[in-house]
């Protein structure tokens, strides 16, 4: 898995060393790093749907690794933009962060990833408590949406990739939603069978009448 996650970086390095980054190397590198971030985020968001659909669980242990790699690539993506593309021209960059919606959501997604990366250790899970930790890490859904939006809002008409990413994210989130709804109704059904009550109890029933 390390090899798969590192391969885009190795490709970049190889192309850099052999002068094969093409006529616009900075744009090529920034785009590749951004693409990789999105792919890793979506791959990470696909792990639970795989368990839901096929009942396999071995992949769940990859969540931390894929998440941290996504954070690693988004940091490189951000650095390429700030340091290489714009050469720390803060006078231009700072207003752009607020003014350009695609940059705003991109920065927001990056900022939200920071607490998730910081609390990725087992120690932090213990310190926060599993329940709080899980709550915090639900931010990854928001981050996924923001990341896809970032790409949708910067791409020109005719570029289809952002729509493909959006479609994949929509499918992955729908599977969770469907599973959540299914479990909810199933639990309700069981409660009804146990207690002989309908899942939606009347006011009298609630009062114990």
């Amino acid at each position: 898995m390390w090899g798969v996650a590192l391969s885009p970086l190795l490709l970049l390095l190889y192309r850099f060393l052999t002068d094969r980054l093409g006529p616009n190397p900075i744009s090529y590198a920034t785009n590749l790093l951004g693409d990789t971030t999105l792919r890793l985020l979506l791959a990470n968001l696909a792990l639970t749907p795989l368990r839901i659909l096929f009942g396999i669980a071995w992949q769940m242990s990859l969540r931390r690794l894929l998440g941290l790699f996504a954070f690693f690539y988004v940091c490189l993506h951000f650095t390429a933009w700030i340091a290489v593309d714009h050469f720390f021209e803060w006078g231009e960059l700072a207003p752009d962060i607020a003014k350009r919606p695609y940059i705003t959501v991109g920065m927001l997604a990056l900022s939200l990833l920071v607490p998730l990366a910081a609390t990725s250790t087992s120690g932090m899970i213990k310190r926060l408590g599993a329940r709080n930790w899980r709550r915090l890490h639900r931010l990854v859904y928001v981050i996924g949406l923001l990341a896809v939006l970032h790409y949708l809002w910067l791409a020109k008409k005719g570029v289809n990739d952002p729509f493909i990413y959006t479609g994949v994210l929509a499918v992955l989130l729908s599977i969770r939603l469907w599973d959540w709804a299914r479990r909810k109704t199933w639990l309700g059904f069981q409660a009804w069978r146990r207690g002989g009550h309908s899942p939606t109890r009347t006011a009298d029933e609630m009062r114990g009448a």
Partner: protein
Amino acid sequence: MLIRHAQDIAPSEITDYQIYLNRRSFLIGMAALALSQTRSAVAAPPAGESLPAARNERFTLEDPSTPLESITTYNNFWEMGPNKDDPARLAHLLKPRPWTVQIDGHVARPRRYDVEELMRLFPLEERVYRLRCVEGWSMVIPWIGYPLASLIKRVEPTSKARFVEFTTLHDPAQFPGQRKSLFSFSSLEWPYVEGLRLDEALHPLTLLTFGLYGQVLPNQDGAPIRIVEPWKYGFKSAKSIVQIRFVSEQPKTAWEKATPKEYGFYSNVNPTVDHPRWSQATERRIGEFRRRKTLMFNGYADQVAALYAGMDLRRDF
């Protein structure tokens, strides 16, 4: 006693020796394919047919010209696909000969020209122009052609002609980007239409272009005939033109139809008027590391600013 073992593998299941040998050539083929795929972005273009033209010293630049390799491997040509390396990869599908250009509309002498004839109507000259893409990158290109004004005067526009409309070839067989597929969620409306006001079209900078770098136009750069207006964003310069029409109403251009809030009819290079989604203040010259400041009218303000005197360039962007 003779014990006969059933053969584990029936002879019919054993791969024929020739096919076995073919496996190797198949693998070599795959490897070559993979290699050619990774190399396509940087491979040198096939040497184009040479197109001699004298340099016009009035249109030269201090800046060095962008390498031919970059000009032919880093292209925006939506007819061939939205990625920068699509045009170089798919350019071989375009057949630039034979080719005709229909010239009609409000003109006294409408006619269908063969591109070979069109090319010889006036002396070709080389002009080095800046090219600024709306995406924020730029090049310096030695184009070959003659002023569009020469052709316009020859076909004699009538008093009704106020705009010139350029139409690009519409042929999905030659332009894969025009094909409909499962994954084309968004696309431009084909054919690609661009336009200029008549006075813009008559401006001496506007070049009817047949070549670059001493050779005929490479397919990915808009062969066999395109227009170049160096003070406007690159997409205004229609490529692979099949029709030039003189009209009285302002044409609806392809990008205007696609996203009217982002791309106006004029689309003059202007560092003070941003694209709604990104700044136009700076650009990266291909081959340079640091961004440079974008110039008003792409550095051609002296020649073209008068065309837009009294206009609000924020409104007429």
